[in-house]
C-alpha cells in the first residue's frame, strides 16, 4: 500500500507539471457544456422562437410533466431541462478523454524516458504499479469531470429558466456524473494501460478509447431519438456491467504487464 501511494504521489506530482496532457479533456469538457447551451438557449434566442412552440419537443414536455420536480416548470423550462439532462451523458466523455491522454502515456512514457527500469528494480509489485498508474490517471480525470459538471450546473442556473438547474441535481444526474463517468473512465484507462503495456506507441494506446466512446455516443443518440430512456435502472445496469468489465480488465492488465518483455523487447 505504501509503495502504491508513493508511486501515486509521483504520478500526481508529475501531472501537475504536465498539464498539457489534460487539454483534450478540457476541450471535451468545454464542448460537452457548450453544445446543450446552443441547442436550448442560444439557438432559440437567435431565432426568436421558443422551443415549446415546436412540436418536436412534445415528448420532452410530456415526459417531464410526469416527474414531480419538473411540475413547477413552464413548458420552455421543461424542454430546457430535458435537453440539459440528455446532454449530461456528454460529460461522461470528459474523464474518458482525460484518462486516455494520461493513461496511454503512463507505461510507454516511462519506458521512453527510461525511468521504468530503475522503478522496476525497487520492491514494487506489478499490482501496486498498475493500481498507482490507473489511479494516477483516474483521480485527475474524475476531478475534471466533476468540475465540468459544477460549471454546467452553474451556467444552467444562470442562463436557463428558473428552476431548471434543480433537475440536474436529481439522483439520475448525479449517478451519471459520479458513478457512470468514473466507471467508464476507469474502463477506458485500464484498456489504455493494457495496450500501453504491449505497444511502443502512445497513439496506439489512445485509439483504444474509441472502444468506449463509440457505445457512449450511440447511447446518447438513442436517448435523443427516444429509442432508449436512461432510467435509474438502466444506469445501474450499465454501472454494474462496467464494474465487472473493470475487474476483468484489472486482472488482464496484471497478466499483460510483462516486466521482462517490456525491458528486453522494447527499443
Amino acid at each position: 500500500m505504501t509503495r502504491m501511494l508513493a508511486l501515486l504521489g509521483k504520478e500526481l506530482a508529475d501531472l501537475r507539471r504536465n498539464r498539457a496532457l489534460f487539454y483534450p479533456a478540457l476541450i471535451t469538457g468545454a464542448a460537452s457544456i457548450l453544445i446543450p447551451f446552443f441547442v436550448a438557449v442560444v439557438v432559440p434566442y437567435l431565432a426568436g422562437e421558443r422551443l415549446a412552440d415546436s412540436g418536436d419537443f412534445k415528448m420532452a414536455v410530456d415526459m417531464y410533466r410526469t416527474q414531480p420536480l419538473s411540475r413547477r416548470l413552464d413548458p420552455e423550462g421543461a424542454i430546457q431541462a430535458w435537453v440539459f439532462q440528455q446532454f449530461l451523458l456528454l460529460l461522461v466523455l470528459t474523464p474518458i478523454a482525460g484518462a486516455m491522454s494520461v493513461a496511454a502515456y503512463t507505461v510507454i512514457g516511462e519506458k521512453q524516458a527510461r525511468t521504468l527500469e530503475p522503478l522496476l528494480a525497487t520492491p514494487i509489485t506489478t499490482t501496486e504499479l498498475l493500481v498507482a498508474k490507473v489511479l494516477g490517471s483516474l483521480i485527475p480525470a474524475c476531478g475534471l469531470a466533476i468540475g465540468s459538471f459544477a460549471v454546467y450546473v452553474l451556467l444552467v442556473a444562470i442562463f436557463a429558466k428558473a428552476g431548471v438547474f434543480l433537475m440536474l441535481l436529481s439522483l439520475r444526474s448525479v449517478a451519471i456524473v459520479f458513478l457512470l463517468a468514473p466507471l467508464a473512465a476507469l474502463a477506458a484507462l485500464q484498456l489504455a494501460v493494457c495496450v500501453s503495456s504491449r505497444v511502443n506507441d502512445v497513439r496506439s494506446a489512445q485509439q483504444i478509447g474509441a472502444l468506449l466512446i463509440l457505445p457512449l455516443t450511440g447511447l446518447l443518440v438513442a436517448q435523443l431519438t427516444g429509442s432508449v430512456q436512461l432510467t435509474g435502472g438502466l444506469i445501474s445496469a450499465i454501472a454494474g456491467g462496467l464494474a465487472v468489465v473493470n475487474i476483468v480488465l484489472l486482472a488482464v492488465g496484471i497478466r499483460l504487464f510483462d516486466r521482462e518483455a517490456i525491458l528486453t523487447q522494447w527499443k
Partner: protein
Amino acid sequence: MLIASHLTRRFGDRVAVDDTSYTLEPGEILALLGPNGAGKTTTLRMLAGLISPSAGSVSVNGETMTPATAPRLRGHIGFLTEAPGLWDRLTVRQNLQVYARLHGLPKQAHAVDAVMEMFNITDRAGDLCAQLSKGLKQRVALARTLLHKPNIILLDEPTSGLDPASAREFRDLIVRLQDEQHSVLLSTHNLDEVERVATRVAVLRTRLIAVDTPAALHARLFGSRLRVELGQPAATFSATVAGPGVTDVAVIDNALSIAVDDPGDRAPAIVRRLVSAGADIRSVVPEERSLEEVYLKLLSEESDS
C-alpha cells in the same frame, strides 16, 4: 554476498548468457567486461531480479531469487541502470523521496537529506531533474541507487559520457563503497577505470571467458617478466642472464625482457650476473601489460577456440 550459479538466459533461440558462475564478496569490486551484445546488461538484470534466468540461479545474502522472493530481495540491491532514469518533471528531492517511500525506509526525510549530503547535491535539491547536467543526473541516480543502503551494488556503465572530473569523482565513490564493505559489480567498457578500481575482472562473451584478479590474468596470459634497462646495447648481455627460473630472454634495443617464474625472487641474482658482466643497469621493473592487452588476448583466444 551475491552468488550467480550457472546463470543462463535465452531469448527464443538466441542465448544471451550461457552458464556463468561467480561470487561477489563483500568489499569486492568485480568488473564485468565484454564487447557489445556480450550479455552484460542481461546479466545485471538477472542479478537485480528484473528478469528471470532460463537456467541457473541467483542468490542474494544466502537466499535464492525467485519470482516470489524477488520483490523483497530487490530491497538489498542497488541497481544503477545505464540511463539515469530520473523523472524530469520532479525535483531532485522529489525523485529521491519517491524512492525512499518505494523502499519503505523508516526515516525518509532523513535518509534523503543524508544521501544528498553524501553526493553533494543538497544545493540542487529543489531543481527539476530536467535542468541538471549529465554528470549531476548521474550523481542523483547513484544517490537513488544507494538511498536504501543496499549491500550489493550493480552499476551499468556508470561513467559513460561523464567528463574526466566527474568520472574521477565517481571512481573515488566506488572505492569508498568498497571500503564500506559493499559488494560492487561494475559493468563497463572503460578499461582504464577497471584498472584503477577493480579487485577482480570477469570477461563475458555470452559465456564467462575468465574471472580473476587483473594480475593473475596477466600472469596467466603473458607470464611474469622483468624489464631491465641498460646503458648500452642489451644484446651483449642476453646470454648472461640465463640461470635458474629464467625461461626466456628478449632483447629490445637497450633493454632485456626476461621471463621468470617469480620476479621478486629472481631479480637479485639476475642483477648480480649483469653487474658482474659489466652491464650498466638503469632500471629493473616488473613488465606490465595493460588490461586492454589482457582483455583483447582473452577475447582473441576465445574466438580461436
